[in-house]
């Protein structure tokens, strides 16, 4: 495992020097979605809760950066702390209310919250620019240079992975999974799941905010679409495509999704059709994600969160 990781790290570190300009753009996009997917999976893997509201954290951070840069002329990088705070606050509110619910009710409530935020961004012309968005946010220096942005995203991915690793191995991680697998028993032995689940939601949302920040640095703009439910759907697709049970599954899913999209789009306008076919095949034939194609040992699916 160690050697594999080391090889992967070296490859990723020298990768940009062998890519043409467009390949580099695709690589950045894949890394940013990878950060988002890893963060999302922190919640999903450890609690079994399927959030349809992560677009809210992602977009809240993105809009915070965009607004601070465009309205208050902050320097781009300086907005990062506040962007993360915004994502954390949004996650706290959504998480606080939502984790009391389970299964589809949780999913629907997170969806409702993030759609609320979308409606605000979409309607509040004076502040967010409405559907015309906020554009022309060219970050100066490192983040404005494609190679620089690539390395920044790579560092973010390593950082997020490290945090998730620590959480997974921590007592809190074991507690969360115990609650996920058998809430009744966890309760019986005196574990109060609520605080742990809110904490997991907030951490997951905050790290998603990091992805939102990088996304705006990459796109140079922010639009209400960042907050729309399809953004949440995209990250879920990446996670499950890669395999949520595997540590780096979500990141690999993000790479597969982004590269596939770039390739398919350059041949046909029917990308949704192609994606639909891939998802169909995945659900029916290799439910543990693409990562299972490279492994002999089949991992178990994430169990259903019990009612």
């Amino acid at each position, binding site marked *: 495992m160690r050697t594999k990781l080391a090889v992967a790290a070296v490859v990723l570190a020298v990768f940009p020097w062998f890519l043409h300009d467009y390949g580099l753009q695709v690589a950045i996009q894949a890394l940013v979605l990878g950060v988002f997917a890893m963060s999302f999976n922190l919640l999903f893997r450890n609690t079994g809760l*399927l959030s349809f509201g992560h677009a809210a954290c992602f977009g809240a951070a993105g809009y915070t950066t965009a607004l601070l840069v465009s309205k208050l002329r902050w320097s781009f990088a300086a907005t990062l702390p506040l962007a993360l705070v915004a994502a954390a606050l949004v996650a706290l509110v959504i998480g606080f209310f939502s984790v009391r619910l389970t299964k*589809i009710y949780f999913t629907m409530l997170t969806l409702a919250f993030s*759609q609320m935020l979308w409606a605000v961004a979409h309607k509040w012309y004076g502040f967010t620019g409405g559907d015309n968005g906020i554009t022309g946010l060219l970050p100066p220096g490192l983040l404005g240079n494609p190679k620089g942005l690539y390395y920044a995203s790579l560092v973010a991915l390593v950082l997020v992975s490290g945090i998730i690793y620590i959480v997974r191995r921590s007592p809190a991680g074991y507690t969360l999974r115990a609650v996920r697998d058998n809430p009744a028993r966890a309760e019986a032995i005196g574990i109060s799941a609520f605080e742990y689940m809110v904490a997991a939601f907030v951490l997951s949302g905050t790290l998603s905010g990091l992805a939102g920040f990088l996304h705006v640095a990459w796109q140079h703009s922010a639009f209400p679409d960042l907050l729309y439910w399809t953004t949440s759907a995209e990250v879920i697709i990446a996670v499950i495509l890669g395999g949520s049970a595997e540590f780096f599954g979500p990141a690999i899913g993000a790479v597969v999704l982004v590269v596939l999209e770039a390739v398919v789009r350059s041949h046909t306008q029917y990308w949704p059709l192609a994606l639909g076919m891939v998802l169909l095949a995945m659900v029916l034939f290799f439910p543990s994600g693409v990562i299972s194609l490279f492994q002999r040992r089949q991992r178990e699916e994430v169990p259903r969160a019990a009612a």
Partner: protein
Amino acid sequence: MTGLASAASLFLLAVGLSLIFGALGIVNFAHGSFFALGAYFLFALTRGDAAGFWHYLPVAVAASLVVGAVVERVFMRRVLNRAEHYQILLTYALLLIIEDVSKICFGADYKSIGMPKGFEMPVFVLGIPFPSYYLGLVGLAAAAALLLWLFLHRTRYGTLVRAVAQDREMLEALGVNVPLLFTVIFALGIGLAGFGGAVSLPLQSISTGVAVDAVISAFIVVVVGGLGSIWGTLLGAILIGEIQAFGALVLPEFSIAFTYVLMAAVLLFRPWGLLGRPPAVRT
């Protein structure tokens, strides 16, 4: 008054979603696509001429039923016992596929037809003209709700449909053909969506892209009313329909956000919906 007409359309869109969730436990993200598909079928059959509306309506609904049955047999059945996110992913995949396939089959332009026979002229309510077809639509939705209720509560098969939501294994043990029952329920749900799409066609234009918005509206209605509850769906549809009608006039800036606030509030205080039942504890 006008809110009722959109409530009728919303009810037909959402009731199948509620039925399918109630009995099969599946959250169907492709439900809006089947709504659009029903409208496309009717448009293709009538070739855009309102004269054939009543004639071809049953055919369009039958086609939707068949599509529903096939989709259940080929896809749904394989994810019935799997974790929710696989069901969501599968139905999301269907949404994407149906979207592009209908673009290829029916073209990208707006589909719309005239008022069906017998409803061409407006009626006057307190001196204000009101489209007579809206009353027809309300009637159709009410009839559908009533028939569905009679089916579920007054027929043996309907009892099975309700029972399967409670305890699948017990029905199987009793020798009921549960797989067939699932196919029937799913087809019925899709048929209702197709019916809703077809009868909404004289009022709104259908094009690709309708499905993504429609399914979210359906979710709001069903969640507010109660997942799996027919009358809840009706109540949800009326509430959302009226909120949109009045909100649009009074506070247009907030009417979209307000429906989500309502959805969140219901989920927080009565997660199973206004008229839904708390879920039975399954171990």
